[in-house]
């Protein structure tokens, strides 16, 4: 036992001290955090440039109906034609020219936005929404319903369906579908990535020892099984450390950046909101709605998103499935590593190992849509796919018996596979230049002693 610890220590330390490990550990959270924070950061920085838009409104019904914002200024030109602008548009100082012809109310498709560049999607949406609303309002007015404005205000609703999970004893838990899917996706994908990445490291480690010929020296001191398990456990520890530091660092970096961004963005946004609100009041536009600017998420709000989730169960099962799933695959990778003489020989042997992994990812994509469907169910039981698929299902809630069954199957197959892998390993590491195939390895499994 003492010897296994020594081997684990060496495998762990020699990897953790590598520059590539440190870089990966530090850089990935920055990337994750950038993905998380990036969009809201960009949103807070977007189009601070003043955009002037000229409008030629031949229908005369939209004047003052297209709201201006802090960044979009609208200029209605009464006596101009599009021909005046066609040439040398750039010099006019306008960003775009909106042309509304006489029939716009009945034929809204004839509205055109001219520009010498591709107008940004925000501006196009802003304009088309405003026109849409105006046209709608006009059409409604045409029905001559009494008190139409009050009715419109009264029926204006905003739907936001909340999903609440009932536990067995009737406890209510609010959950967010997107967060659930997000967690499922991230966990499954992380599992897939790590097994592939670090499983290959186990294989490379075994091959390295074999080609270095250091293996014979070592197995004259320890049992081949100890060497194999020590290597696998050591690398599993590296992997866990990496994942945990990713989680912690991503959370830390994310929180810090978010709070910085939120602090900067908050005053501007409120000002903007106020302005919009006053505009609203002045214009008394019935169809206008005050779009409250999207608040940047504070860390508290992020934590709130996870409220619907059983964080402990998710974390616990992630560690469980990661550990046993990794050990299962790592044992197979070790067996392959022991059977070959160099990394270039591994391809055909590795195929059958990576196949279930790839299959899992395909199943995961449909499993995320129906986590209780038969496909997801069966693949969360089959040992080679269960580490990924069960992690896909867990955030959605899995019956206890299924979890227990899947876990038991996984542990049992881990024992069987490790036992077989150890037999292949002890024969393989001392053989050089033998032809390697799964059939040959099957023979090694059946060797006595």
């Amino acid at each position, binding site marked *: 036992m003492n*010897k296994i610890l*020594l*081997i684990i220590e*060496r495998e762990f330390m*020699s990897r953790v001290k590598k520059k590539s490990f440190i870089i990966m550990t530090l850089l990935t959270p920055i990337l994750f955090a950038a993905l998380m924070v990036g969009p809201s950061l960009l949103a807070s920085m977007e189009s601070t440039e003043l955009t002037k838009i000229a409008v030629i409104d031949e229908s005369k019904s939209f004047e003052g109906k297209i709201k201006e914002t802090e960044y979009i200024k609208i200029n209605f030109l009464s006596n101009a034609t599009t021909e005046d602008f066609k040439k040398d548009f750039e010099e006019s100082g306008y960003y775009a020219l909106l042309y509304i012809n006489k029939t716009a109310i009945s034929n809204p498709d004839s509205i055109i936005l001219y520009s010498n560049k591709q107008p940004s999607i925000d501006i196009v949406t802003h304009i088309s929404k405003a026109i849409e609303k105006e046209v709608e309002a006009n059409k409604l007015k045409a029905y001559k319903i009494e008190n139409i404005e009050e009715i419109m205000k009264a029926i204006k609703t905003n739907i936001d369906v909340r999903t609440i999970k009932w536990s067995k004893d009737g406890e209510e838990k609010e959950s967010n579908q997107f967060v659930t899917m997000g967690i499922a996706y991230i966990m499954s994908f992380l599992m897939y990535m790590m097994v592939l990445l670090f499983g290959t490291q186990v294989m490379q480690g075994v091959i*390295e*020892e074999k080609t*270095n*010929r*250091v293996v*014979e*020296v*070592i*197995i*004259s*001191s*320890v049992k*081949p099984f100890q060497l194999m398990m020590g290597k696998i456990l050591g690398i599993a520890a590296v992997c866990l450390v990496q994942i945990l530091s990713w989680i912690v660092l991503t959370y830390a970096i994310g929180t810090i950046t978010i709070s910085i961004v939120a602090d900067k963005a908050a005053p501007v946004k409120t000002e903007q909101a106020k302005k919009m609100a006053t505009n609203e009041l002045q214009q008394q536009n019935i169809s206008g709605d005050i779009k409250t600017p999207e608040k940047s998420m504070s860390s508290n709000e992020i934590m709130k998103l996870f409220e619907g989730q059983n964080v402990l169960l998710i974390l616990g099962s992630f560690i469980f499935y990661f550990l046993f799933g990794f050990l299962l695959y790592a044992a197979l990778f070790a067996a392959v590593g022991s059977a070959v003489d160099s990394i270039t020989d591994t391809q055909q042997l590795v195929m059958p190992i990576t196949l279930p992994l790839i299959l899992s990812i395909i199943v995961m994509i449909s499993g995320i849509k129906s986590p209780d469907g038969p496909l997801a169910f069966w693949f969360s039981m089959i040992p080679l796919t269960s580490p990924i698929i069960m992690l896909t299902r867990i955030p959605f809630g899995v019956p206890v018996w299924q979890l227990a069954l899947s876990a038991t199957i996984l542990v049992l197959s881990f024992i069987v596979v490790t036992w077989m892998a150890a037999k292949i390993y002890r024969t393989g590491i*001392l053989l050089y230049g033998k032809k390697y195939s799964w059939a040959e390895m099957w*023979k090694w499994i059946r060797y006595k*002693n």
Partner: protein
Amino acid sequence: MNLLTAEHVEKRYANHLALDDVSIAVPEKSIFGLLGPNGAGKTTLIRIINQITGPDKGEITFAGRKMKAEDIYQIGYLPEERGLYKKMKVGEQALYLSQLKGISKSDAIKQLKYWFEKFEIQSWWDKKVEELSKGMAQKVQFITTIIHEPKLLIFDEPFSGFDPINANLLKEEILNLKAKGATIIFSTHNMGSVEELCDHIALINKSRNILHGPINEVRQKYGSNIFELSFRGETNRLAACLDSNYSLVSDTDEAGIKKALIKVINPSSDNRLLNLALPEVEIIGFNQVIPSMNDIFIQVVQDYNRDNGVTAN
């Protein structure tokens, strides 16, 4: 007393017999040469002794009883195919291998310091193994093999990769270890060093032990029928006086002193040879020729292969 014995050991791999009823006895505090052509089964036997693999039949005893798993810590093994982790630092690695052999970290550091100083390689401690030459790495490996002061040392081709100076240093160390009470199994194809170092030998060929015993006895046995006669006079007269019990193998002439190698076909007649030769030539010297281990090796293996109808590979 024997430190280690192998009794009727048999080991079969998928389709060939690696060891067939092999028995050896390694006396305590001696150097035991394990010889044999490539592929004879030496490495398999060594692996069985190291408990890397187990015998199908037969038994290994250690210090007078059946070998136990813990006995592995009483063995130091320097395999022929040896290597180190390339990316690891020399000192770290030596420490790791020592600890795997069951000694505590503090003891290992103390011992390693002593040996690194003795071999004058202290400056290598923080170097990576990949920076070392082959011979340098071999030195480190030798140290890690003997660091835990095992009762039994197994060296498989220990001198390969060493320059003559370092080979000599190593030879001295091996003799030192023997003097300190270690028992050494020594496997090599270099018969010169076998003659120099070994007390006992066993010759494995085609999975079988075909020759074993104390090296002097073995050499005597294969040398008992050839004599070297130094003389002055006519070679022809010497040749003429020999009867059918003798045959002249070869003769040389060096600065007037002639030497003839004479094979005695009937072993009971050593003195008669002198009687026959005395009247014919002036005898300067007469002694038995002890063949080199090299000759014995070749002769025994070839005879065995011929007698058993197998061809050498």
